[in-house]
């Protein structure tokens, strides 16, 4: 089947999404502040769902967010939980959480996700 990569341009309040099927490099970067996080994340979640269903995954996901609001946090968690589940079924995902080294808060957020998930999850201060 023909299943393409996912690209969503960055805006001032939503992150760039670049999930490349060929290389397995999944990038999410920018800010995620939409009041209605559902509308933004729904297609991303659907895409990941379909990707997991149809591919044997070997994915390096890089998340580099400047800010995210609490409702975006819920959808991020949903995405990561889907990934966690697919890993139980033999898929391979690794998550790199990138934060500026002086950005205590985002590092803390990364650690929160890390503690909630059973996944290769690395926090990388830059």
């Amino acid at each position: 089947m023909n299943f393409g990569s996912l690209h969503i341009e960055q805006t001032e309040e939503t992150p760039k999404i670049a999930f490349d099927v060929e290389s397995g490099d999944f990038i999410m970067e920018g800010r995620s502040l939409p009041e209605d996080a559902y509308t933004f994340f729904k297609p991303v979640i659907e895409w990941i769902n379909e990707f997991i269903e149809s591919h044997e995954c070997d994915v390096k996901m890089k998340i580099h967010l400047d800010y995210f609001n609490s409702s975006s946090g819920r959808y991020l968690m949903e995405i990561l939980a889907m990934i966690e589940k697919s890993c139980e079924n033999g898929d391979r995902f690794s998550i790199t959480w990138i934060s500026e080294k002086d950005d205590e808060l985002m590092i803390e957020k990364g650690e929160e996700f890390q503690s909630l998930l059973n996944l290769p999850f690395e926090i990388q201060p830059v």
Partner: protein
Amino acid sequence: MNHSSTSAFPLYRNVQHCALSFTYRGPFMDDFTSRIVDISENTIADSQGLTKVNKKVSFLLVECFQNIVRHGESVGIHAEAANSGFFNFKNIGDSYIINSINPVKSAEIDSLKDQVELINSLQPEELKKMYKQQLMESEISEKGGAGLGLIEIARRSGQKLRYEFEKITEAISHFHQQVMFTSNGAQVIAPSFINQTREMYDLMGEKQALIEYKGDFSQKSIVPLLTIVERNFGKDIKGKALGKRVGHILIEILQNISKHAVEYNGLCDGLFIIGEQNGKIFILAGNIVAENEKAELERRLAEIEGMTKEDLKEVHRQRILESVAQEDKSKSGLGLIEIAKASSAKLEHVFDPMGEGLSFFSLFVQV
């Protein structure tokens, strides 16, 4: 809990009739103007849809602001006082009003008064002529005419400038200035907001607030507000990203308010101030809530305020995990928990009764 320090209601009352109010108290920095312009453009573009108005607002904001910065320097008051000023921009109906308070040397009052009076006495054609003259004179004389900035402000606003001087000490006085214009270009006799601005000055001084914003709390205001906060608060003494922490809490507060605020007088809005008390940054935010929401909010806040940091982490963790299974993630109550988690002290709140089944809800958060 000291009620008066936690309530944002007196501030709200001061600007209640404004669709938008933005106040800045503190050192005036030049690059700050572009941020104010961002806010005004984002807010006004939507309510009026008039780019012409936007341009004018932007122009006047920049001129007024820079005029204060320049003036502060030119009077040669010691650096701190020269840079500290007070600046409020508001929108009421078709009117846009800029009020400022800045220190001047008492000895300069007469010459400043002469300049403003001269400008106020001139017709548009005469102002234009004076403007051209000033442009051509390479050396701007101190006493001859008025400064270019003031002339420009008067020309663009199309209204008389309002002003007052208030003696602070023998040597220093406050120059209160009000510039106004209307989106339809109508000549109106502008009501004076000088007393109201003075009250805001005192209220913000009491609370050591640096920024006040009253208006729409919807998404489009968030990005420019965030930029202002980041620029203003930058990094703390340990080099940590303080501005980001302030921004993070602010986003949650604004989005929380935009979800719960009640429409009043046709406006659905709120107010917040950010300031610094005892070396700690705080955010004090407020909005109108319906009586029937109050009980639920009170219950949730009491619960959160009773929790330790560890409790909060655990509850947050549970809620996040639960939400994965939930279809509807909008009703989470996660916002307040997030705010409490990011705060360095316990949250404080106050409800001020407003009658008509409404209360004013204030939330005080220490960053």
